[in-house]
């Protein structure tokens, strides 16, 4: 069984990947300027203050752009061709890149509502990915 490539974890990002193990998608906050940022950093990208923290995002968003990838040298992705890479616009107004899973690549559309889920890689790391939100 192949494993999803693990992210390189740093002191600044360990909390983000660990939050995934609790099904939490974190965004960065700043008490100096009140703006959000993603991915979370120790220093706020907007005002360079060190007064940053994190909060859980709702996990809801829409697909803003995507690509269906047909070639990979990585075993995990080679087994899952074609796979979807997307830019997700989170409800909080922030963008992040992730895979969209749980549906055929051919039905993925810009504007499709998605919800976060997590792929657990280790005790300390779970990677946020997105699936189509169930429609009523």
């Amino acid at each position: 069984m192949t494993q999803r490539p693990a992210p390189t974890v740093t002191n600044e990002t360990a909390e983000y990947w660990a939050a995934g193990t609790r099904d939490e998608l974190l965004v960065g906050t700043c008490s100096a300027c009140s703006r959000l940022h993603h991915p979370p950093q120790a220093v706020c990208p907007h005002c360079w203050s060190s007064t940053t923290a994190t909060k859980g995002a709702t996990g809801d968003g829409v697909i803003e752009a995507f690509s269906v990838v047909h070639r990979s040298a990585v075993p995990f992705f080679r087994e899952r061709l074609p796979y979807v890479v997307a830019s997700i616009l989170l409800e909080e107004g922030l963008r992040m890149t992730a895979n969209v899973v749980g549906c055929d690549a051919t039905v993925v559309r810009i504007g499709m509502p998605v919800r976060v889920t997590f792929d657990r890689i280790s005790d300390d790391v779970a990677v946020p990915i997105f699936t189509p939100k169930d429609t009523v």
Partner: protein
Amino acid sequence: MTRAGIVAAWEHPARTAPDYTALRFIGESARGALDECGLGPADIDGLCVAGDTMAAVHVAEYLNLKPRWLDSTSIGGSSFLSHIIHAGDAIAAGHAEAVLIVYGSVARSAAAALGTSGRGQNSQDPMGVDDAEAFLQPYGVVLAAQYAMVASQHMHRYGTTRAQLAEIAVTCREHASRNPLALYREPITIDDVLASPPIAEPLHRLDCCVITDGGGAVIVASEEVARDLAKSPVWVLGGSEAVAHGEGGYRDLVDLAAAQSGPRALAQAGVTHDDIDLCMIYDSFTITVLTALEGLGFCKPGEGGPFVEGGRLRLDGGLPLNPDGGALSNHHPGRRGIFLAIEAVRQLRGEGGDRQVAGATTALCHGVGGYLSGRHSGVTLVLGADK
């Protein structure tokens, strides 16, 4: 000429910080320097970072800076003194007004972390600043997908079609057919591009550049030296650098570095778009060219599709593109920027042979490095020959 002075010189008080990253030291030091002199992040328009590939782009992203002047001179411990010299020159020449030179390292803690796994530092490079790559690593975000996502958004927002992107590939192949050194010279059609295998949709194989081996060199000399030499010099009329990135999660995908560097380069050179006789635009992928043409201001955002139709980019068209055949058909050993300049010089000297753009005296080169949908650099250079 403007004199340049050091206005902030701030030292982080730490000596042992096992919870830090190099980036955190950089960010806190940058904040310390601002606090010392009273400038704000928005006042900084130049950035110097010594490190590995793309280090300056990574730091620009971490600090959400969009500098118009960059220096990545990385020559060991002396680098930062070099940065100060270069920054002074840049300010004197009017390329920047306030340059941030930053450094951060976790050499002590990284050494202590050797042999550990899981949480903690990547002990490979205590000065490493490419931490943000981790947010792409788990997702199989191949380079083509980074560019494809821009195409995806562009097509959705503006109605740009695959056939319009294909015009760029067909044009470069037509030009390559006139270049005896080009890797691929057999003409292709729009249908050939559309039918080529998908790589990262909407980009198909013929939307993507070739991979070659190769090398090149350029010498830039003073006017005094240049006047004594056999060939007429091609003058560096102006240029500008720029960085685009995630902007803390807020960047619009089709907002590219070209939109920053293009207008600045033309203004510095004192030329308009109409003065440009040919353009050498980094064609890693067809979408790179289409969006660059918009960003550089040859057409409005969203009008790139119609702009590249009707033969405009051909040698006898309104804006000849990549007469050598580009990365798409001629040559791309990984980083193609030097060949943009080499072909532009060739054309401006009238040495273009079968692919000569008639009467060319002014050329624009635009290079792109990195991920178009994320952090990337854009550099625009305007060259001119004496008429």
